[in-house]
């Protein structure tokens, strides 16, 4: 505990975690602060008890200590008190979890995120399926509006991946055969780094992406610009299609360069 404080330096209020650049991330951050303080208090209490026992009761003589075996009152106390503490903590967990996983019914920008070995595809169904693809040699960027609700539909083409943006205090698995959805309410514009967290094979370490949060106006103009430049190569394709049928083609490539070609080829066939 003490070491953790020293190591995290002067960011004591954050205890090493990011304050969160999304509304959801800020909720998680507050829970983290609460848990850290609770953990610190309990941890230091037990730590001091152990240290006290170690230093106070060093063997100084051959005198036989009292052979105490039970103390019912203490035993009941340290059973009941932790139960109460845990239940109180659970209430906070429950409330925060519901806030973070809540799906809003307001207007939102949808992004279909597809993970594959070893890159990402970001597709915007509301903007003629504008698409951004990148692999480990060429990091893709997801452009989204700040200050609006962004709905992510997350899935994978091959193995399980993890969609993780540290500064959002959030991660979620991208899985084959299952689509996860969640909302991000990014509060500040900026570029945030993201990375695959769930081990997914050879080049897992290099499966990076970034999120660029811009003003809603800038987002609109970016999307329209992309629409016009991509319109020639894109035909219509629903957000939930273009999946399982072509999986086998994007699997297991021997070299770093191969996934790029195989996936691009697959995308073309799929559409």
């Amino acid at each position, binding site marked *: 505990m003490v070491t953790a404080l020293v190591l995290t330096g002067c960011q004591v209020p954050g205890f090493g975690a990011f304050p969160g650049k999304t509304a959801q991330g800020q909720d998680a951050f507050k829970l983290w602060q609460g848990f850290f303080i609770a953990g610190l208090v309990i941890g230091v209490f037990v730590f001091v008890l152990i240290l006290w026992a170690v230093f106070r009761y060093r063997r100084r003589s051959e005198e036989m200590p009292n052979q105490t*075996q039970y103390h019912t009152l203490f035993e009941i106390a340290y059973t009941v008190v932790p139960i109460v503490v845990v239940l109180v903590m659970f209430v906070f967990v429950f409330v925060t979890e519901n806030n973070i996983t809540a799906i809003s019914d307001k207007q939102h920008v949808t992004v279909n995120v597809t993970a594959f070995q070893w890159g990402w595809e970001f597709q915007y169904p509301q903007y003629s399926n504008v698409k951004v693809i990148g692999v480990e040699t060429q990091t893709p960027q997801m452009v989204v509006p700040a200050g609006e609700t962004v709905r992510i539909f997350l899935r994978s083409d091959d193995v399980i991946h993890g969609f993780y943006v540290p500064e959002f205090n959030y991660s979620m698995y991208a899985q084959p055969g299952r689509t996860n959805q969640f909302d991000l309410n990014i509060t500040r514009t900026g570029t945030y780094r993201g990375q695959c967290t769930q081990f997914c094979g050879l080049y897992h370490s290099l499966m990076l992406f970034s999120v660029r949060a811009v003003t809603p106006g800038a987002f609109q103009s970016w999307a329209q610009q992309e629409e016009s430049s991509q319109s020639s190569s894109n035909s219509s394709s629903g957000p939930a299609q273009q999946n399982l049928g072509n999986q086998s083609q994007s699997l297991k490539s021997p070299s770093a360069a191969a996934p790029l070609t195989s996936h691009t080829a697959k995308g073309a066939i799929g559409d």
Partner: protein
Amino acid sequence: MTEVISRPLSGGAPEVPVVHDDGTDHGHAEHGATGILKWLTSTDHKVIGVSYMITSLVMFYLAGIMALIMRLQLWDPHSSLVTPQAFNELFTMHGSLMLYLFAGPFAFGGLANYIVPLQVGAPDMAFPRLNALSYWLYLTGSITILMGFFVAGGAASFGWVAYAPLSSAVNSPGAGADVWMMGLALTGFSAIFTGVNLCGTIFYLRAPGMTMFRMPIFTWNMLVTGILILIAFPVLTAAIVMLFADRHFGTHIYDVLGCHLISGRPTPNACGSPLLWQNLFWFFGHPEVYILALPFFGIVTEVLPVFSRKPVFGYKGMVFATLSIAALSTGVWAHHMFTTGAVLLPFFSLLSLLIAVPTGIKFFNWIGTMWRGQLLFRTPMMFSLGFLFAFLMGGVTGVMLAAPPIDFFTHDTYFVVAHFHQVLFGTAVFAGFAGLYYWYPKMFGRMLNEKLGHWHFWLTFIGFWLTFMPQYVVGLKGMPRRVAYYPSGLGWQIYNQLSTIGAFMIALGFLLLLINFVVSWRNPVLAGDNPWDAHTLEWFTTSPPPHHNYTHLPPIRSERPTWDYNHPDALALKHGPHATASGNGRNGSDGSKEKVSV
């Protein structure tokens, strides 16, 4: 042959070389086989236990070397020491060796095999030949897993959890994956047989007077561990069989590829599910965490009272805490899967948080055991204290991870790596080696060197904090686990370098352990029967014990028969202000010199 009965031990004078050995090898006369043949054919639980410990220690050192190579790779963000493929093989095998082949087998195959029959006053395990089969299956399985390094395509490289569909034939085509699965199935059977043996021994072979509530806590914990093994390991073995069928027999239990093939159109919900693997694996995996923890809790509960010269505080609370941990551990597996988005039920969070309660009870009981005692800091005690600090830190961060909102941003980062290493290092290493230092004199009749032991402890203890505390920090900064490279310029490097330095300190400590073994072998300091003035039955017989363990037993009137026998004068002290329950030892006060023949 043995004059142990007539000689009450006076206090703890550890290094007095008391020789009872009259020169003949106990047991061999009646058993015949000696030398290498003894090790190959024996069904004696002590021989098998030592074989288990030697094999699991070899696995521990091998896995440690793999960890050192990984730490060297991470010294630099773009190090080219090993290839990404080699790195993936290294962390897969490091985890597999440490969890499947060291921590479990060392505890329930090694220490428990040796100690449990002695602690309950039994001549051997309930099924000695099954016990031998367990060991040979374990050895064969271990060699099979290690063979992965020598097949084309290299060893398994999908992590020790082998998540589907990364572990499928398409994504992991090599034979390394197959030998990993075969080896795991073999060691799984070995564990199941050992679980049966432990339960059978503890239920049926207890000596007269050894009631359930007089069993040492170590034996209690091994009973519960045995039951957990019977709950968890068959699930793993079955899951692996299905994975193998997916890989070789064309089934589609864990992959969605087959959905398309069977129905002709992409209908993800119609057939196989990668999530099923995770559910099955963690239904094994979370009880497994406690299979790897309870034996070590038991060791600490043996060591702390002996070196505090007090009985276990809250013995019955300890037993019920163990039982509730076991019960809760079967209902928390989905906390490994919060970020799948599929099992995000508050139930799993609540149960995970609740496990902190019985664990907390254990902590307070351990502190209560030391409270107002006479603490003597021999090496086993030092390692037990190291366990307390390590497990405290690992436990507190574990409570944090039980909260899904916190788990979301720490899952699969180095925060989790630091957490489970603090838990598992705390149990399997600190408590495990506390057990080794504690029982080594019983097993080999000679002491380990105290000075080397203390150096071993301090190097390991300081190295431990230096290795894992920076990993919490770098995890919160966003560094994922299982990466061979990481971006430079994010300030992650310094934490990784601190970690690497710490890892090498630990390695140095464990080099000293090897030296300690050599010293004890070359220049033996004889241990005598009971060098620690310990409490439990195993310290009543000779060191090492004769072939069938006991020629005589002391009266068993409490959970500390050897102590009662050696301290008839201390019985009066038992009736302290709060020594109420169970009336331990009262009946023994007038009969402490009586003998029970077996």
